[in-house]
């Protein structure tokens, strides 16, 4: 009986508690830059130790090894011609959002403003901008498309007060600071980037295609290992036009002390190798 009374009282108080919490001044909002729990700024160099022959060389025409293409995609690859691309001014199709992180490249990362993280690639002289919290504007499709970014670990303010605080329970309910008590590590959370509005491009230099309907989802992380800093990006390309299922690869980068080796070069695809040289 006593329990029933207590429960009734507590239930009666609940709307008031919710109102009380809503009435509290919200913690000051953080910009995405302030909320960043991983610092990607700096210069990174690709470590091409996977799929080397597809990335450092141009694989043979028709070589679609390990890409889950449909028949249309395979046909596109078989009929790919470097000369035709060059003639049309399409030299940079392998440097679009769906394929650029696989290029042997250096990446210079900086904040354009509090809401925009910029990735500059020296290979192909390409720039990608990752926009936080912004809706995708309508506009022309571009090689790099339009990228929306989010920290996968939400900023502390977004999580709201602790449950105990909301319930008004005694103890351990001190107001939560917008800034974590301990300084954040610079490599705690992943960065998720979703890119749409892309022009058709190549997953690989030898004309393995993705279409303008492709959605490129990327997850960036930073790690420390054996005295060096590394960045890794998982790239998931989902394309209803040429792929039977999402194409998933992950690419590795090592941090450099400065950008002295960052050297922009134009898009350049070497002629495809010929198989079976004797």
């Amino acid at each position, binding site marked *: 009986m006593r329990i029933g009374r207590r429960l009734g009282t507590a239930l009666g108080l*609940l709307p008031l508690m*919710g109102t009380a919490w809503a009435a509290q001044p919200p913690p000051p909002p953080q910009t995405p830059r302030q909320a960043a729990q991983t610092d990607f700024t700096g210069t990174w160099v690709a470590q091409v130790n996977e799929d080397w*022959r597809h990335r450092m*060389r141009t694989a043979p025409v028709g070589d679609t090894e390990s890409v889950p293409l449909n028949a249309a995609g395979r046909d596109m690859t078989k009929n790919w011609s470097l000369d035709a691309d060059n003639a049309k001014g399409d030299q940079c199709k392998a440097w679009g959002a769906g394929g650029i992180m696989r290029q042997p490249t250096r990446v210079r990362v900086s904040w354009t403003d509090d809401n925009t993280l910029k990735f500059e690639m020296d290979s192909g002289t390409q720039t990608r901008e990752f926009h936080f919290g912004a809706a995708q504007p309508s506009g022309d499709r571009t090689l790099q498309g339009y990228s929306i970014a989010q920290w996968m670990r*939400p900023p502390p303010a977004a999580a*709201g007060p602790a*449950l105990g605080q909301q319930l008004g329970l005694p103890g351990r309910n001190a107001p939560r600071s917008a800034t974590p008590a301990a300084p954040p590590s610079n490599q705690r959370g992943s960065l998720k980037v979703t890119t749409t509005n892309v022009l058709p491009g190549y997953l690989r230099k030898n004309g393995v295609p993705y279409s303008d309907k492709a959605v490129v989802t990327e997850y960036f992380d930073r790690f420390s290992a054996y005295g060096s800093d590394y960045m890794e990006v*998982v790239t998931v390309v989902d394309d209803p036009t040429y792929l039977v299922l999402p194409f*998933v690869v*992950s690419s590795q980068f090592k941090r450099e002390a400065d950008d002295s080796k960052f050297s922009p070069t134009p898009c350049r695809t070497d002629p495809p190798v010929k198989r079976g040289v004797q």
Partner: protein
Amino acid sequence: MKHMKTHCASVLALLAIATNPGLVHAQAVRGTFPLMDVVGDWDPPGGGGFPGAVQQHEEVQDRGAGPDGGDFAGLPLNEAAIYRARAHSPQWLTVPENQCRLHPVTYQQRAPGGMSIVKIYDPVTEKLVAYKVTGNYSLPRTIWMDGRPHPGPYAPHTYEGFSTGKWVDDRLVVETSHIKAGYVRRNGVPTSDLARMLEYFVRHDNYITINSWVEDPIYYTEPLFRTTDFKAAFRVNTQLIEAFGGTQDGGPGATFYKCTGIDELDVAVGRIPSYLPTQEEDESETFSRLYDIPLRAAFGGADTMYPEYMQPLRALGSYKRGVVSSLFANPPPSWVQPSREAPVAPDAGVTTQHVKGKVWAITVGGQNTVVQVGDEGVLVVDPGSQEHGAAVLAEIRKIAGNKPVRQIIYTSGDASRIAATPLINTPIKPDGQVANIISHESVGLALGRARAASEMIPTDTFFRGERAIYFNDEPVEVIHTPGVHSTADVMVFFRESGVLVTGAVLPGVTYPHINLEDGGSIQGTVDVLNRILSITVASWHGQGGTMVVPGQGRLYDEGDVAEYREMVTLIRDRVADAVKKGRTLDQVKAARMTRDYDARYATASGPTSTATFTEAVYRSLKAKPAKAKG
């Protein structure tokens, strides 16, 4: 009543969440929160079914049917690694000791198929003890989460290694040590037993990526960083095999059987298929030739994985035949190992570990003494050097209490193995007996000639192939093993315990000391190693089972002995080939045919230095017609 209160609080909490729009919003934001566990069944990105599916989206040859010979491009290998990988033959898998080996942890995540990760909880405390990772044609792997330390420097190594993990924010960070020599790619790109690995397991939505760094001071000029992606397997797997793309009726995932090596080829026992340095055309050029990649680039090196290599790659042009020898005669700068700290720091400490059954190993200053303890007393194999005698005796007392030392066995007459005997061989109270000392007869003769202390003189010698005693309810075989280090060498096999003590014939941490003046030869060394392998029996996929205590260093098992035998055999075959072709000793030395093993096994000076070992191999092969390979 207490339970009612708890329930009441839970109801309140749920209602508060449900009635508070702000909190609901916060939870919605948390819907993208990636702090999710790693448990579950995981498929390659292309799915779990083998037939016809594009399972792997990168490194498909390495992770699927198998890489081409010579595909080392983009790997930060030094000259030693490339030399060794280039010698690799696919027939290596026919060696009986290799047939049952599953992939080492340095390759595990790259193998075909998926994986299953489960949690192990302590049934009493209900705390997380470990994650268990199974799959990928590899041994089940335990990642300890309970804070236990890594084993000591002389503990056995396994193919799966010893892994500890901790959660750092939303990543599972795993450190692995004690890994057996293995590979990172199935075409022979090696890892040494000094390799270690760091991994970050990271989940993103329905994907998990394992970021791994393999650090190997013997073979890599910088850590090898690779990433492997899996996606959640949204299906119910009721058998382990189903998690790897197999079917319940025994599909291609059915690999986790009890395996026994068999004779696959009608070749001599101990033959190790390999490519010789003088073979210009071989398997290692497959990749280079097939994809028209210059061999220099195909063979790898750290420079080949960075963007600036595009320029020299273009300048190198196409594949050309016949450049292997010139490459190894003038290795590119990137193949040179940067100077680092010594891979193994000299250890002056004392380590005691239980090997198996009644047998213990005491390691002092890197040198091994073995003790068997039972109701009859203590048996000591190789009491050790005079310098270390007191430490060895102290360890014996910790293991055996006041039990008397009744048997001592010398595996050779080296002072470093037996000089501590007078400290250990003290009269047994109350009857004043001393220990029975067993050795090959030649040790007794030599000590007698040297007028050694009476407590050191063997009392029980033999000159035929074997001597056996029964002690502590266990047959103990003393096996004569001449042909390597001295005519006096013996091994000791504890039959019940399943422990073989090799003494100097298998030093473990250095090249073998081939003593030509006392009957040693490279062929004798190979024969003794093959004999060791005829005694050992692995318990599970090429490891465990019979344990081997080498003369120095960490504990071995069959897999380690097979690795050591492979090293000795490959060097024999290379030098034999050179002898057959009429090369002089200077030419053989200049060819540096041991370069893939020097950093691991060569000492700076003495009989196990590169120069002296190479000379011993050469001279012993030159002394009689070179034995044909195989």
